[in-house]
């Protein structure tokens, strides 16, 4: 964790290569240092974050929420100190929490886009002692009601994100009492990097930056000892040695897998020996079915990580690599600087709490497809194997027996459409990221494409959105999961867009490519599909459109 002084020194550095973002910061106490910490923490996460902070007097939050220049993303920080003052002055203490939650509801509807709200650290008022829980109108009871009410609100409101100060305060002191009393700075200097890092993590996740894959070493990382030397029965797992610590680390990885993080193994071992514990050790929690890519050999780890990246078709910046060996960590950091390689504590019992505290796997969305991701990647390696058996591309595509459905936006696919929009970086023509709410309010037609083949369902793999502009159908969004590149899905989608635009009486399909650091892949997308360049745009005349050939059928 960087210090506040380090974050502050970041402010003078060069942000120009980073993705830009703006956030409003509304608070009831001084924000200058928090604003500096946020921009500095943005630098650490390669984000050019501009923080717009206003005055902090009484009623300022409500007043500033009316300002039409408010950025899409708004952070509201109400301090526990001011909350407590209001509680003390409240005539109806038993309904204090309900009233406060009502106020937060108003904030949610007033922000133009997403709201990041900080919940409250526990603070004892020393009035009722342990009896406070039995008293509905006690500060402790009301404070906890507010925090659990905020969690309920966040589950119900897609645009509300909670920065969990209550949780952060269990490992970091929030306030420097002397500073809080003599000034209006309610976060201690040492807490500023903690809360700023956490907020920037949420902002990054909202912008579609999150880790998708955890790559793990085996010996002395997932178990104690060296499988090749110590043998299966002597590994520290279960009750043996520090086995409990390694077991807990595995259980954490398994929970991440269930949540949708892809697990991979990179180990210097013979593959057969390395797999043995996964197959036969009774105290192993991770099994081979949890692992999407198992890479055990004697090549260098950077090469292995490149291979894993190629199979998964994700960026290095969405991968985390954990290894107990400092030399391996060093090598990987040097060769693959984009990859996240946490330093590990000296004592293996500290690995897990340390990694959990780093908050590596922040996200802004979940969908039920997340849980099936490992299975899909395992299917993907089977497809890789099949492909190598065919000399001819067409024959391979036919052999897959692909079937696709194209549907509009439904309550069921809405979270998936939003999530694919957040995740897609490479095959994404304009990289416009819509929240669920924004999608719901779009005027033009949305195309959600699902694909399956003989190895299983890919789920939602492509999204396109048209916007009617007179006789032109402007392609506002066209994105696709890179897992289904070179399958002919582009042709299928283009046919669907052309048909819908013609049906609505439009003559032109108009596309645009907005370059980002990651979407080089689709620079020539419209040219390949027969569009003609017109200024900065691409146009396709629908009067003589011939549907393009592909090998994807419709479901029976």
């Amino acid at each position: 964790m960087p210090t506040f002084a380090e974050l502050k020194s970041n402010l003078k550095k060069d942000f120009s290569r980073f993705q830009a973002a703006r956030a409003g910061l509304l608070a009831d106490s001084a924000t200058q240092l928090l604003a500096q910490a946020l921009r500095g923490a943005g630098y650490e996460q390669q984000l050019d974050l501009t923080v717009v902070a206003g005055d902090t007097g009484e009623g300022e939050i409500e007043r500033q929420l009316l300002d039409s220049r408010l950025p899409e993303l708004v952070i509201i920080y109400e301090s526990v100190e001011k909350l407590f003052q209001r509680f003390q002055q409240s005539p109806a203490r038993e309904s204090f929490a309900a009233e406060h939650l009502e106020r937060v509801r108003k904030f949610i509807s007033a922000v133009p886009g997403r709201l990041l709200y900080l919940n409250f650290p526990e603070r004892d008022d020393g009035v009722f002692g342990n009896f406070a829980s039995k008293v509905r109108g006690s500060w402790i009871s009301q404070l906890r009601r507010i925090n659990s009410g905020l969690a309920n609100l966040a589950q119900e409101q897609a645009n509300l994100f909670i920065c969990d100060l209550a949780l952060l305060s269990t490992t970091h002191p929030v306030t420097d009492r002397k500073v809080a009393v003599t000034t209006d700075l309610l976060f201690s200097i040492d807490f500023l990097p903690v809360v700023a890092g956490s907020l920037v993590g949420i902002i990054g996740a909202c912008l579609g930056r999150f880790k998708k894959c955890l790559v793990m070493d085996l010996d002395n990382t997932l178990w104690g000892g060296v499988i090749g030397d110590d043998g299966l029965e002597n590994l520290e797992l279960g009750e043996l040695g520090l086995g409990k610590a390694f077991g807990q680390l595995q259980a954490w990885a398994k929970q991440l897998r269930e949540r949708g993080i892809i697990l991979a193994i990179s180990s210097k071992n013979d593959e057969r020996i390395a797999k043995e514990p996964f197959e036969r050790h009774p105290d192993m929690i991770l099994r081979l079915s949890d692992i999407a890519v198992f890479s055990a050999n004697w090549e260098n780890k950077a090469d292995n990580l490149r291979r894993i990246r190629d199979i998964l078709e994700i960026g290095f910046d969405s991968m985390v690599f954990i290894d107990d060996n400092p030399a391996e960590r060093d090598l990987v950091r040097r060769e693959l600087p984009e990859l996240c390689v946490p330093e590990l504590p000296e004592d293996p019992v500290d690995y897990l709490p340390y990694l959990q505290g780093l908050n590596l796997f922040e996200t802004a969305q979940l969908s039920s497809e997340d849980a099936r991701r490992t299975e899909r990647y395992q299917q993907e390696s089977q497809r890789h194997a099949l492909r190598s058996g065919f000399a001819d591309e067409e024959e391979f595509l036919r052999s897959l027996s692909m079937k696709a459905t194209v549907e509009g936006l439904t309550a069921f696919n809405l979270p998936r459409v939003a999530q694919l929009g957040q995740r897609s970086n490479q095959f994404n023509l304009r990289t416009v990221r819509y929240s669920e709410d924004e999608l719901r309010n779009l005027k033009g037609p949305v195309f959600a494409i699902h694909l399956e083949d003989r190895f299983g369902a890919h789920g939602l793999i492509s999204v396109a959105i048209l916007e009617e502009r007179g006789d032109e159908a402007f392609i506002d969004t066209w994105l696709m999961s890179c897992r289904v590149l070179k399958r002919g899905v582009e042709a299928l989608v283009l046919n669907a867009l052309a048909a819908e635009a013609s049906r609505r009486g439009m003559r032109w399909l108009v596309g645009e490519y907005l370059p980002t650091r990651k979407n080089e892949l689709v620079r020539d997308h419209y040219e390949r599909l027969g569009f003609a360049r017109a200024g900065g745009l691409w146009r396709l005349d629908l009067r003589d459109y011939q549907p393009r050939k592909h090998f994807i059928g419709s479901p029976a």
Partner: protein
Amino acid sequence: VSILEQVNEIFRKVLDTPALLIAASTTAKDVPEWDSLTHVELIVALEKQFKIKFTAREVRKFQNVGEMCETIAQKMHAL
């Protein structure tokens, strides 16, 4: 290294003024970067450097660098 020299070094770092030279008589008025916000950062940095804790009254009362150094010396002596 005297307390004043160490304090000067902290001031340079926190205020980001590598050439800053302070004396016992220096006050916040003499140093443009020394405002109420950086004052808090200075106090916290000094507490860490000398492994001491100031009281809230001390923090409010400091008139100049000399008083800071004296308080630091007393507290270090008491350890």
